[in-house]
């Protein structure tokens, strides 16, 4: 009866669980095992030093890690701040033509990575790119976005921020809209200024959502692949924008060294878990 009814649950769950087990659980275990195997000889043998030992002495790894961290540390705060500003301003009852602004900020979210990578490559071209032409028109000399590492990094950060700020703004806006109006009405009756309302009511209430966005963005940016692959031409100049994702791609799918790539993947996983835990710690309820 009740138990037979609950047995139906396995039927509903089975197809998904099958896919989940084959294409999620098994790979998670498999890549963990592989990270301890030398996959450059046949058959693969257990040899932790082959990958983990090499990883921590590989300058290319430290370069990719460094680049990824620089992007994280600059891009995530810039983007979340922008996203919060977008969300707060979009939420203002004073705003005219709200739909138009929403479209402007949210549209990049649906644009494919390849399409926007192509556009950014053209826009930031040294001699013919519209960005340099506009800079020149304003009296600023051209920047060689693709030939100098710092400029190339800046380009990646600009591109990723453009693509994902609206995404975070949507989430933050949803959070803003879930704050009941009467809280603000009560504050207004108490003669609390709009700015103070924002600082003392809005921001504290938004904190969990902003933290959620920060974690999502960190984990997303950490896996950055398509942008350095396509925009800065495989991490150029000379590895100046090579990220962990790209480094892993080169090791795993260009050199077909699966064990080493798995070790890189698990390094990313460890970072992701650390960041999630840090978030739990930062976001914990004050005692």
């Amino acid at each position, binding site marked *: 009866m009740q138990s037979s009814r609950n047995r139906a649950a396995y039927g509903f769950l089975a197809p998904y669980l099958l896919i989940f087990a084959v294409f999620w659980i098994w790979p998670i275990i498999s890549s963990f095992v592989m990270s301890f195997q030398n996959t450059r000889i046949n058959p693969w043998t257990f040899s932790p030093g082959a990958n983990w030992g090499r990883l921590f002495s590989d300058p290319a790894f430290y370069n990719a890690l460094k680049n990824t961290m620089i992007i994280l540390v600059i891009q995530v705060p810039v983007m979340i701040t922008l996203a919060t500003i977008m969300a707060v301003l979009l939420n203002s009852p004073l705003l005219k033509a709200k739909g138009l602004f929403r479209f402007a900020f949210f549209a990049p979210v649906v644009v494919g990575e390849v399409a926007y990578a*192509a556009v950014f490559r053209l826009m930031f071209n040294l001699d013919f790119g519209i960005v340099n032409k506009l800079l020149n028109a304003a009296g600023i000399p051209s920047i060689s976005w693709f030939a100098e590492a710092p400029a190339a990094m800046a380009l990646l950060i600009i591109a990723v921020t*453009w693509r994902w700020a609206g995404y975070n703004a949507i989430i933050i806006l949803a959070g803003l809209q879930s704050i009941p109006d009467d809280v603000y009405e009560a504050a207004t009756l108490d003669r609390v200024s709009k700015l103070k309302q924002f600082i003392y009511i809005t921001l504290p209430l938004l904190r969990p959502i902003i933290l959620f966005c920060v974690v999502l963005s960190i984990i997303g940016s950490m896996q950055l692949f398509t942008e350095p692959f396509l925009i800065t031409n495989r991490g150029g100049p000379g590895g100046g924008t090579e990220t962990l994702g790209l480094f892993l791609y080169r090791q795993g799918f260009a050199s077909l060294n699966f064990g080493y790539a798995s070790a890189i*993947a698990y390094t990313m996983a460890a970072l992701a878990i650390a960041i999630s835990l840090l978030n739990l710690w930062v976001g914990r309820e004050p005692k």
Partner: protein
Amino acid sequence: MKSKSRSAFIRSLSLHAVLIPLAIIWLFPLWMMFVFATMPDYGIFSPHIELLPSTHFAENLGNLQADTDFIRALMISLSVAMIYTFLSVLLTAMAGWALARYQFLGKSLVIGIILGTITLPYFVVVIPQFIMVAREFRLANTWVALIVPPLFNSLGVLFMRQAFSMMPSELFDAARVEGVKEWQIFLRIALPLARPTMAALAIILFLHSWNNYLWPLLINSRPGMMTAPVALGTLIGLTKVSWGGIMAGAVLLTAPILVVFILLQRHFIAGIAAGAIK
């Protein structure tokens, strides 16, 4: 009263003064995509500032098609995205239903694993997935390879589960008392009621599949089986290539999605706001 409306006016003015330039900057790349797509290559690489569309879209499209069979790639992308969306919504809905509405052995374990894998980087699974699909199953450059592995979707399951658990349980009890079978309850009552959630999820999943780049790049790189993003990606970075053509391709990739986005903005935003998928 007067001073209040004046301060509101000033606030409104400064609000628009911030937002209008920001919106223009944000729209600029999209605008330029359309402009580039209509320009001949000599226009794109002219030393002048060109901000207005030209008339060479059809020509660019022809160039693109000459560089790669983009029409075919678009058809593959469209078919894959549709099949994937249908299957994924169905699978996640079924699993979400099971996790929302039944008590069974192992339930909390399943939920725990699904939750635990959410923040795990995709790169952890993509290597063995590639080995398995390409080497062991020998399925590279097939439809199955494009559609099936990405069907796992933790956030979609949680999203559907949330929707089903918010439905009043008396509704399903009423059907049980009437002798309606469990699968009929799911199909005839739960699914129709979850339609808005499924719409939001379907849109996000479709978008995800349509734009997916890394997995199709790895698994389906043979010319005849490339998806549109992969086909376009192979052109970027080539020296002898029509950039107007690439931009025309980018427009073909982007425009349909933008139209859908404008029409179904509400569902899009609902899906993203729920964190359905990144």
